[in-house]
C-alpha cells in the first residue's frame, strides 16, 4: 500500500491523510511517499506521526520516501520527524523556529516533560523577535495545560503527539497536539448523563425523563467553558487557553470525534464532520508580538 502525500496545508488535509494511513490493516508494508511534496505545514506533522505510530503498533512496517524538494526535506529534518520513521539524521534547526515533533506517554513521563520544557526554553529564549520571556512562559504554560488535559481525560493508548513552529517574520506561533483517546464527545456525554441521573427529580424519573446526548460540537463547547470539567472539579485549562487566544487575536481549531470547532478572527465555526476522528486534535495559532498584549506592556524584559 502506497500513500502519496503532496501537500498538507490545513487540519482537514492532515485528517484526510490520517484516515488514509489508518486504512492499512493487513499490509506488511505501508509506503508513505513524500517525493512530490511541495508544502507540509510543520505543526500538523504530529497528526501524521500519530497515524504512522498507530500503524506500526499493528505490526506494519512503515517505509518513508523522502521529499525531493529540499525546503520540505530540511523542514522535516529540522522538526525531528524523519529520524523517527526512517534512517535520517536530524538537522540543526539553525533558525530556531521548530518545536520538535514529540510523543509523550500518559504515564511515567516526567523525564520527557523536563526535556520538552528545556527544549522550548533553550530553543527560543531571546531568539524569536518581539517574543518576551514573559509571553514565552505564558505560551509554554498553556501548552502544559493542554498536556495535562490529555493526561487526565484522553485515556490515549499512545499518549500525545505534538509539534509546532514559530514564524518570527509574521509574529505567529502554531502548535498542534493530538491524541487517539476517547474523545471529548464520549467523555462529556458520560459525565453529563451521570450528573443527570444524580440530579433528576423523582417526578422526572417516574415520567421516564432521559438524558439527551449532546452532539460533538456541543460537547467541545461545553468543555471550553469556564469551570466545566468531566472530573467535576473546576476545569480551567482549556478556558485559560481560550482566554490567551482571545487576547492574542489568535485562532483555534479542534477536531474530536465527528465535531469540528474553530475560532478565527473572533468568529466561531462549528460543524459535524462526515467521518469521525478517533481522538482529539487541538491546533492553535497565537500572536507572538508582546507589544500586542496589553498585560505585557510594562514587561521590560
Amino acid at each position, binding site marked *: 500500500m502506497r500513500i502519496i502525500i503532496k501537500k498538507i496545508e490545513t487540519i482537514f488535509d492532515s485528517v484526510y491523510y490520517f484516515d488514509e494511513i489508518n486504512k492499512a490493516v493487513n499490509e506488511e508494508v505501508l509506503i508513505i511517499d513524500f517525493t512530490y511534496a511541495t508544502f507540509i505545514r510543520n505543526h500538523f506533522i504530529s497528526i501524521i506521526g500519530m497515524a504512522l505510530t498507530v500503524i506500526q503498533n499493528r505490526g506494519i512496517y512503515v517505509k518513508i520516501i523522502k521529499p525531493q524538494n529540499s525546503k520540505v526535506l530540511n523542514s522535516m529534518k529540522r522538526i525531528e520527524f524523519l529520524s523517527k520513521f526512517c534512517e535520517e539524521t536530524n538537522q540543526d534547526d539553525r533558525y530556531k523556529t521548530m518545536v520538535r515533533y514529540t510523543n509523550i506517554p500518559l504515564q511515567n513521563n*516526567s523525564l520527557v*516533560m*523536563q526535556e520538552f*520544557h528545556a527544549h522550548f*526554553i533553550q530553543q527560543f529564549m531571546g531568539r524569536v523577535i518581539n517574543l518576551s520571556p*514573559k509571553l514565552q*512562559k*505564558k505560551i*509554554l*504554560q498553556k501548552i*502544559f*495545560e493542554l*498536556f*495535562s488535559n490529555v*493526561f*487526565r481525560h484522553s485515556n490515549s493508548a499512545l499518549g500525545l503527539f505534538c509539534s509546532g513552529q514559530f514564524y518570527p517574520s509574521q509574529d505567529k506561533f502554531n502548535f498542534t497536539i493530538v491524541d487517539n483517546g476517547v474523545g471529548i464527545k464520549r467523555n462529556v456525554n458520560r459525565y453529563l448523563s451521570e450528573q443527570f441521573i444524580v440530579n433528576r427529580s423523582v417526578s422526572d424519573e417516574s415520567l421516564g425523563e432521559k438524558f439527551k446526548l449532546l452532539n460533538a460540537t456541543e460537547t467541545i463547547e461545553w468543555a471550553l467553558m*469556564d*469551570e466545566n470539567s468531566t472530573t*467535576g*472539579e*473546576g476545569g*480551567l*485549562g482549556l478556558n*485559560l487557553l481560550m482566554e490567551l487566544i482571545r487576547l492574542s487575536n489568535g485562532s483555534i481549531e479542534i477536531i474530536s470525534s465527528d465535531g469540528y470547532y474553530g475560532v478565527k478572527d473572533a468568529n466561531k465555526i462549528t460543524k459535524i464532520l462526515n467521518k469521525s476522528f478517533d481522538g482529539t486534535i487541538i491546533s492553535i495559532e497565537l500572536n507572538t508580538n508582546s507589544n500586542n498584549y496589553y498585560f505585557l506592556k510594562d514587561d521590560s524584559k
Partner: protein
Amino acid sequence: MIKINVKEVIGNTIAMSTEDGKKLFEILFENIRNSNKIELSFDGIDILISHFLNEGIGKLYEKFDNWEILDKVIEYKEIDEDDLELLREKVIPTAKNHFKDIKKIETINKSILDNEY
C-alpha cells in the same frame, strides 16, 4: 510559621500532575489542621498549571469550614505574579464555588493567624 518548598515536596520543577498536587495537599492539610501558619515557596518551579493548584490548594476549601482564615493562612513566596493571579482570581474562586454546598469536616483554629514561631 512553617516553611514549605513546593519543589522539595514534589521533587519536580514542573508542578502539573494530580499525584504531585495531592502530595502538596497532604502536607498543607496536616499543617493547617495542626494550626500552623504556612509560608509556601515556589522557588525552583518552572511551570505551574491550574490543575496542580486545584489539587494542592483548591481542594483545601473542600475540607475546612472557615474560608476567611483559610484565605490568609498560606503566604505565597517566590511565585510569578501571573501564577499568583491565576491562583487567587481563578483557582480559589472556582474551588469556593464548587465546594460551597459541601459540608466541611475540619475547623481551623482561629488563633492560627497569630502563630509565629
